[in-house]
């Protein structure tokens, strides 16, 4: 028997067994009924060396096309190709952060706890809200938890969700509603932005637990949050705003526009595209709801000598103490991603954050104009956009994307799932970041034009 990360020699194992009065390792498993024991071992190959593993990984990786010079990224849809500097990679991969467990013993976890405290501060400033938790799995998970909070706080299961919210987040919300019993109703879009008038029809049900809006929404359009706030007030609901943390560098904060809960996808802050995960669920709310806040919260306190110290606090909210009365089952979160985001925001600073928002918006304006100049390409919505936009193309966008990968571009994401039967179904969602240059966009537009013919 050999296991690469087990340090014991055969002699040591024999010595330990003898001390226990056992003759073989098999004797340790006498409690396992023989009838169910696995005969013949696992149906897996025997172990590989690290060198063999690396060869295989190289081979598999060659079947992928990462974004970069050979595949310039114009895809977004919740996952963006932002700058990740060496300093962020280096600090976020420090093994003290990477290989720690949840900070159950604060005296030896001040590093993670303080980093989370700084992260929480940054998220409250980005959202204009009072408190932020120490992270959730991703933006979708944050939305699910926000809706749970709203339903619990109001005692109302009805959720009115803008059809402009990321369709995969909406799908996840629907999956969880199978258990929670939330009644989710979609509020339709009109020319790219939510039409809240539908919620104010005579005879429509008068109350709700949550009103959900995203700005910029999935189509990239900027929403009128005040209109969503009015709808929430009318319905007695909590207002949940899905925000874009990069756009937050220039846009009004969710909190200043009346959001009760703000949720977002933190991937743009130093986290690689990673084929979709692990990402980072941003979550902030008002102090009034802090006892319903899902997940961990780090607070500042002192130690026995009066020195500043940090600790996971308001623990009575959490599942390990509250058990079946807990409103969330979250235990493991995305702490390492939260620390990464805090480091990235430290690198960006006040001006850097605003700058990536402006640079992304400039690239979007330039790219949108270049693509709209192509014969047959039209805007899918007229509402103002910031850094992402939807286009109608004369060639089906899935086909277009395939053709353009051959030319070295990831052209965008097809709008399909969650938009069935709407005017936006079958359009192409294109995103830009501060990493896109004029020459990249010029050549992309040329290739795009060619791919349509």
């Amino acid at each position, binding site marked *: *028997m050999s*296991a690469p*990360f087990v340090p*014991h020699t055969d002699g*040591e194992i024999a010595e330990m*067994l003898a001390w*226990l009065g056992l003759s073989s*390792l098999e004797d340790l*498993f006498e*409690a*396992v009924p023989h009838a*169910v024991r696995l005969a013949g071992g696992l149906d*897996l190959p025997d*172990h590989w060396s690290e060198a063999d593993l690396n060869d295989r*990984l190289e081979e*598999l990786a*060659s079947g*992928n096309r*990462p974004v970069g010079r050979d595949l310039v990224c114009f895809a977004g849809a919740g*996952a963006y190709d932002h*700058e990740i*500097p060496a300093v962020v990679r280096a600090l976020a991969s420090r093994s003290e952060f990477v*290989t720690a*467990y949840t900070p159950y*013993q604060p*005296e*030896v976890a*001040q590093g*993670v706890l303080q980093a989370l405290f700084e992260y929480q501060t940054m998220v409250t400033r980005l959202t204009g809200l009072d408190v932020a938790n120490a992270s959730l*799995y991703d933006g*979708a998970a944050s939305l699910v938890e926000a809706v749970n909070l709203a339903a619990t706080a109001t005692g109302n299961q009805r959720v009115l969700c803008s059809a402009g919210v990321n369709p*995969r987040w909406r799908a996840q919300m629907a999956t969880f509603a*199978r*258990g929670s019993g939330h009644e989710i109703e979609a509020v339709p879009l009109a020319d790219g932005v939510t039409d809240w008038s539908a919620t104010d029809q005579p005879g429509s049900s008068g109350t709700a637990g949550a009103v959900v809006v995203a700005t910029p929404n999935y189509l990239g359009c900027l929403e009128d949050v005040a209109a969503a706030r009015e709808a929430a007030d009318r319905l007695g609901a909590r207002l949940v705003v899905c925000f874009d943390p990069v756009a937050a560098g*220039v*846009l*009004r904060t969710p909190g200043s526009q009346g959001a009760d809960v703000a949720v977002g996808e933190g991937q743009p802050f130093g986290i690689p595209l990673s*084929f*979709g*995960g*692990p990402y980072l669920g941003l979550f902030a709310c008002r102090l009034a709801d802090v006892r319903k806040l899902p997940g961990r919260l780090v*607070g500042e306190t002192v130690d026995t000598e009066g020195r*500043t110290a940090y600790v996971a606090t308001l623990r009575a909210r*959490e*599942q390990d103490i509250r058990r079946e009365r*807990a409103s969330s*089952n979250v235990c*493991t979160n995305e702490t390492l991603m939260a620390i990464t985001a805090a*480091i990235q925001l*430290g690198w960006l*600073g006040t*001006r*850097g*954050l605003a700058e990536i928002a*402006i640079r992304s918006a*400039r690239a979007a304006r330039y790219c949108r104009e270049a693509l709209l100049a192509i014969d047959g390409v039209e805007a899918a919505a007229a509402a103002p956009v910031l850094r992402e936009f939807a286009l109608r193309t004369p060639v089906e966008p899935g086909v277009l994307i395939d053709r353009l990968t051959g030319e070295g571009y*990831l052209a965008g994401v097809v709008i399909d799932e969650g938009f069935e039967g709407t005017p936006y179904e079958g359009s192409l969602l294109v995103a830009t970041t501060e990493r*896109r*240059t004029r*020459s990249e966009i010029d050549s992309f537009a040329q290739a795009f034009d060619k791919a349509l013919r």
Partner: protein
Amino acid sequence: MSAPGGRATSAPRLGRETEPSLFDFSVAGRRSASFRTSDLPEWSLAELVDERYLATEPVQLAEVAERDLVAHFTRLSHRQYSVDLGAYPLGSCTMKYNPKSCDAAAAMPGFANVHPATPPSCSQGWLQVLVELEEALCAITGMTAATLQPAAGAAGELTGLLLMRAYHESRGEQRARVIIPDSAHGTNPASVVLGGYQVSTVGTSARGGVDLDQLRAALDTDVAGIMLTNPNTLGLFEEDIVEIATAVHDVGGLLYYDGANLNAILGIVRPGDMGFDIVHLNTHKTFATPHGGGGPGAGPVAVDDRLADFLPGPQPVRLEDGSFGYATPPKSIGRLHSWHGNALVLLRAWAYLRLNGADGLEQVARVAVLNANWLRERLRGAYDIPYDRRVMHECVVSAHALEKATGLRALDIAKRLLELGFHAPTVYFPHIVDEALMIEPTETESPQTLAALAEAFLTIANEAREGGSASEAKSAPRTTPVGRVDEARAARQLVATFDQRADSGS
């Protein structure tokens, strides 16, 4: 077995000085960031966005030089214990060593820089890894199909419960209750309620397993299923698992396997063979994916053929021509993740499984169990041993008698261990054991480290008994970056951001 191991004194001592906040280092106008030269027109913000959407003031972040950033986070890292530093015997957390080659795999640009919406034709490598991982997880658990979408164990639990619900509903049955033993992890009852079920709790027998009489009394056709951790949180294998499975199946219920303790049985026995229908795994426990100070994890769920049609979708699949694509199962409960799950975590798990192989995984379980039993025997006499029979991968001992005799509590023992250079075990869990210390050494700690850990536990008990009081431990820890932390004050006077500090001026 005399050389010390697992000591971690030097790094924490370096971090003894309180570290200011990043915001304390901020100087207006200082910066680190720089960006690509884009040559794009420099439109002003006002030209790009209507004023009504724009903030009047920028989001205030710390403005620091790269050098400050590095110093701050490096010093923070010196105030942090980690597996790389030493033994981390947190019970139920399986804090084994995280192989560096798995991290290196996750850092490869050919995996890390792939956009999740990349068409299958340009992400075959990723899809193959995910499909192979699903297949390996099925082989390990004895199941027929798996989903990799759940981002952590708790998400896996809820996925499993939603699958259970979908299964019963597809048969036209409305069942209301899920049974959980009183020794279960807190996530279990919380997940049950989020899954739309009520919790029925059954007690623990004198031998530390599920009380079969109580279970039989609780079972009827209103029961959707039972959630079990096996070995359970006492570290004990459920000896009556076959009887339990039969009883639950007889009333039409399903068996859910909480994979928190799967490390104990890799290659020894498979949940499917024990009668389980749904299994979640924690890759950050069993398959050594690093826990990141609290996450990320991944909580794949594997099921038997009765439930395969309900799995979340779309999921990566092997196509008839040998290439890879996506498919959504016919009665899918829907999405559990925005994309395909925590892919880079899953890649590490795939790499770990390859590095260990069938032979290595069996040895992992055997040595994990050997270590736990050896440690438990070393602690006998100094600590109480409840439910005294052979354990699996972890052991639960109690400081009940010590507390009565000397006032030494499980919490004090935990804090004194930190001072002696080890991370503490899990304390006060499971709730059914008074003054519980739940210790999981894992297979990656050497006999030398194990001996040093045992010595530390014995020293603490002896100090209290010989001194007649717990005074030494009561004031611990004194060598850590901070002393014992005032947790009550943190909750009473909530300061959850820098801006809520009394001296922050806001």
